[in-house]
């Protein structure tokens, strides 16, 4: 494997992602643009907590911490998912480039992974800004004791399983121009619902809890909370980490095999370039 070649490709595709994302305006406007949405998003969730405090008259810092960290770090996963999954729809229906990408880049799967990288980096920045703002709005005066190496490791693992999941979703989206965007949006919503984001998944009905168990998001979110503040109570960090890594490995293998099968099938069926107008 030629690592230099691989890195050059990665750089070129990441650069393309960045340009597609940002070249419609000035850099400062772009920064404001990417910050505004998560900023108001976190305010939306922070005021859920404020509404409860006003209604009950009780302050509950642990609930506020849970809500704010979940909503903040969802930006990382949500952004990464969007970055990978939306490519198929954008390139096929909007820019009409998918066929050119398909024949010019050695592997569509590799291309999708590379397209998502910039989104994860932006996701980290957005999560950080959201966390700071969210903690300030909820008036959370707790001293955070972060475990930075664990946070970094968890972010990397998160990017791996999220990209694998996104590859699976993208491969489904290859078949349908009509349903592709809906599948992508639904996956984001599903992760928000079953990922320990703004409430503990134990509150879910049994059948939804099973879905939560099948996705590493639940563990990822808990480890993220713990790595931000080691005083956050969790059962056993090693068990959680082990469970997350095992699930991630399953997702990586499954996504690779699944994408190859779908890729073959989609070409046989001739759906690769079937856009909305067909």
């Amino acid at each position, binding site marked *: 494997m030629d690592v230099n070649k691989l890195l050059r490709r990665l750089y070129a595709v990441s650069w393309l992602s960045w340009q597609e994302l940002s070249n419609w*305006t000035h850099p400062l406007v772009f920064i404001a643009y990417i910050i505004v949405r998560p900023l108001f998003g976190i305010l939306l969730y922070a005021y859920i907590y404020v509404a409860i405090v006003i209604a009950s008259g009780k302050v509950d810092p642990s609930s506020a911490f849970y809500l704010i960290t979940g909503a903040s770090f969802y930006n990382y996963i949500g952004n990464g998912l969007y970055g990978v999954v939306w490519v198929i729809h954008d390139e096929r229906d909007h820019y009409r480039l998918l066929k050119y990408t398909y024949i010019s880049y050695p592997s569509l799967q590799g291309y999708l992974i590379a397209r998502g990288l910039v989104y994860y980096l932006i996701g980290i920045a957005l999560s950080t800004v959201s966390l700071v703002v969210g903690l300030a709005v909820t008036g959370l005066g707790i001293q955070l004791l972060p475990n930075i190496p664990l946070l970094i490791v968890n972010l990397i693992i998160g990017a791996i399983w999220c990209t694998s999941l996104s590859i699976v979703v993208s491969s489904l989206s290859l078949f349908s121009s009509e349903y592709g965007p809906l599948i992508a949006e639904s996956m984001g919503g599903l992760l928000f619902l079953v990922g320990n984001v703004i409430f503990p998944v134990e509150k879910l009905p049994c059948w939804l809890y099973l879905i939560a168990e099948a996705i590493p998001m639940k563990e990822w979110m808990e480890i993220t909370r713990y790595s931000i503040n080691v005083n956050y109570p969790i059962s056993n960090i090693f068990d959680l980490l082990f469970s997350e890594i095992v699930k991630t490995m399953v997702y990586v293998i499954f996504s690779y095999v699944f994408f190859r099968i779908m890729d073959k099938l989609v070409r046989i069926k001739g759906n690769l370039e079937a856009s909305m107008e067909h």
Partner: protein
Amino acid sequence: MLALRSRKSTLLRTAIARAYVRIKGGNREPSWILWEVILPLLMISSVVYAYHSLGAPPKYIGFVILGGAMMSFWFNVLWGMGTTLYWEKETGNLEAFMVSPAPIEGLLLGMALGGALNTLTRALSMIVMGILFFDAKFDVNAIPSALVIFLLTLSVLYTLGMGLASLYLMYSRSGWRASELLQEPIMFLSGLYYPLNVLPMMLQVIASLLPLAIGLDGIRKTLIIGKKIWDLGPHVLSLITMTVIFTLIAKRLLKYMEHKAKKEGRLILRWM
């Protein structure tokens, strides 16, 4: 006189034709409707579960369900109205519209009527699901009052959508991004998941300038608190005033942007 009547008739016929396409197109695939109901329900369910886990009063569940239902109209205004002309340009239909005798106002009116009707079915399904799955409670006697506020809110929102459409016609991809930017801030300021009185006074003042915030607040006050329409005079007055102002602005803006786009050759400029 005859010319005016003929112009009005063309406008109406265009609106009906465009509304037909939108209604037919939006409902030709039943599975889409299912997706469009389930998708926002995923987020709404998350917030309902969060409220449950935080021990919120039961009326908050109703707040969330109504917020989600009304928000679908706002999304329709942004993506179904605002970005319409941009999408027509991207798909190559805009030039056909421009050379036909159909007025753009008629097209947008049709979009508004068709879009509102399509969204109504989704919003109602959301409310029904909220009642069935989350036991959301609403005052049935307040439905007529809520209906008045609802219709007034729609008229403001869709006239605002017409104004946005003209902006996006001109600014294309930047306009698309503007639509994205108008999601979360409006959701936050309109009190999507909570009553407006939890916001600081300054933000409540800003919210009082947003038609969605006023409409949503009015509908919640009727269906959840049980107020009657005569208790909501300021809401009604604000919504009527906004409808008149936004209609005038949208009309002028549309003419101006169309002229400017033609002058700068942007009508058929794609992917920019």
